[in-house]
């Protein structure tokens, strides 16, 4: 699967991110996308072929595999990656929309790409919240779907057409557990980064508002004094 499209899009997001946003992007690229493409995909490559049940009954292995893995962990990982990266595109769209408006009105609407003000701030804020929501949502989904974050080596299955409770053996359970734990740790790190960035944004905005109010009140008191003197 070609991930270059997502990568190119996310590279564009880099310009309009805060410092922590860039760290988040680097973590996503290196510890999630790269590890997925280079290592994780290969671990789950032959998962159905190597899935073996202690039975000769045709079809039993298929139904048991389907029951235990409604969606493969690695595909869920890929979906999570896509969904978590998508809110950042909101920011890119917003900037593109405003650049279009700037061209039409022939004036600068933003001081500089690095500065976030007005609508862009809200878009960025919303994208952060949505990203965090997706991260937490997918982690909860993972936990619920697979009963925890570890992969057992043996699962018992008694679905039709299996004639009785059958032992089914999963391939590479330890290696899969290692990579799932890696995924969970990196997701938690990304959630923490998102929370830090949210607090940083809110704090910066509050400080700016307070400073503006304070300087306005200073100016108005200076004007009053000036009027009195004059």
């Amino acid at each position: 699967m070609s991930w270059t499209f997502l990568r190119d899009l996310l590279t564009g997001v880099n310009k309009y991110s805060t410092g922590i946003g860039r760290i988040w992007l680097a973590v996503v690229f290196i510890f999630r996308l790269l590890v997925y493409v280079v290592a994780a995909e290969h671990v789950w490559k032959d998962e159905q072929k190597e899935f073996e049940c202690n039975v000769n009954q045709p079809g039993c292995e298929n139904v048991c595999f389907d029951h235990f893995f409604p969606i493969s962990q690695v595909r869920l990982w890929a979906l999570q990656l896509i969904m978590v990266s998508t809110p950042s595109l909101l920011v890119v769209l917003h900037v593109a929309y405003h650049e279009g408006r700037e061209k039409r009105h022939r004036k600068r609407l933003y001081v500089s790409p690095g500065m976030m003000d007005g609508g862009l701030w809200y878009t960025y804020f919303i994208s952060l919240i949505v990203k965090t929501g997706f991260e937490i949502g997918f982690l909860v989904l993972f936990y619920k779907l697979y009963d925890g974050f570890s992969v057992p080596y043996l699962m018992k299955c008694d679905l039709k057409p299996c004639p009785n409770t059958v032992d089914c053996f999963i391939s590479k359970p330890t290696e899969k557990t290692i990579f799932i734990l890696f995924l969970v740790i990196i997701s938690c790190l990304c959630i923490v980064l998102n929370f830090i960035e949210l607090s940083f944004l809110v704090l910066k905005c509050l400080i700016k508002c307070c400073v503006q109010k304070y300087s306005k009140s200073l100016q108005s008191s200076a004007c009053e004094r000036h009027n009195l003197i004059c």
Partner: protein
Amino acid sequence: MGDWGFLEKLLDQVQEHSTVVGKIWLTVLFIFRILILGLAGESVWGDEQSDFECNTAQPGCTNVCYDQAFPISHIRYWVLQFLFVSTPTLVYLGHVIYLSRREERLRQKEGELRALPAKDPRVERALATIERQMAKISVAEDGRLRIRGALMGTYVASVLCKSVLEAGFLYGQWRLYGWTMEPVFVCQRAPCPYLVDCFVSRPTEKTIFIIFMLVVGLISLVLNVLELAHLLCRCLSRGMRSPRGQDTPPTQRNSSEPYADQVFFYLPVGDGPSSPPCPTYNGLSSSEQNWANLTTEERLASSRAPLFLDPPPESGQKSPSRPNSSASKKQYV
């Protein structure tokens, strides 16, 4: 084996901001690790589970024995090792980028303040503050950043972390698998009914690659230790010369001085060649001036150029640092 392009590009950037030993380490990392992982990944370890055969007909026994023999495949282990060992370098790159951007912003602010016509005392104070902050970042006459202060701390910390991680991963590999791949793995795990012989695919070829990667890991570790020693010696010699350096008159540096060729600790500001040379700072500390004098003396005293230094930029040549590096960037290996 997969898509390493992004990581390669990032590590390429770090190469411009490293010492000579750091550059050798990066080259070793690229050539001997990424390429070998790509070569060996699919071709040697590709069929490791499908050709792992146990002397039993018990269903599930092969799966559980494979899982017991290889909790994590060598190839995946080396990928994780590579990632973790590169991470401190990327953190250092982050610090470099942060300082470069800060320097650019300060320079911009300075330009704006200087453009103001009125001789306002507040403008003078703001300019003085900006100049103090810029002096901390320590830019040389050709517009490049120097590794000192916090940046040197980050660099040393990154080299230390790299060494610890490298040693940790080598130890982990030794504990998990040892340094050879035995052709037979004896397994006793449910549901296998008794002690079962399991046969690994291509044990000799895998042993060769394991030993190869072990040697690369050891070389990498040795390079990190050498780099730490190198940095320590530099710091000590700088510390020893600075008390004596009070007598040295500060010399006026200009952009024509060939000391700018000494690229050990120089970092480009902004996008490199397009940024203008920085004006000289008269308010140099004596330790900064002594570092400048020390490197000038060393460069003049050396009879031939060190192996990994570029020819002077005035010659207009660009030598590639390693295969597949982008030719548009200035390379120093």
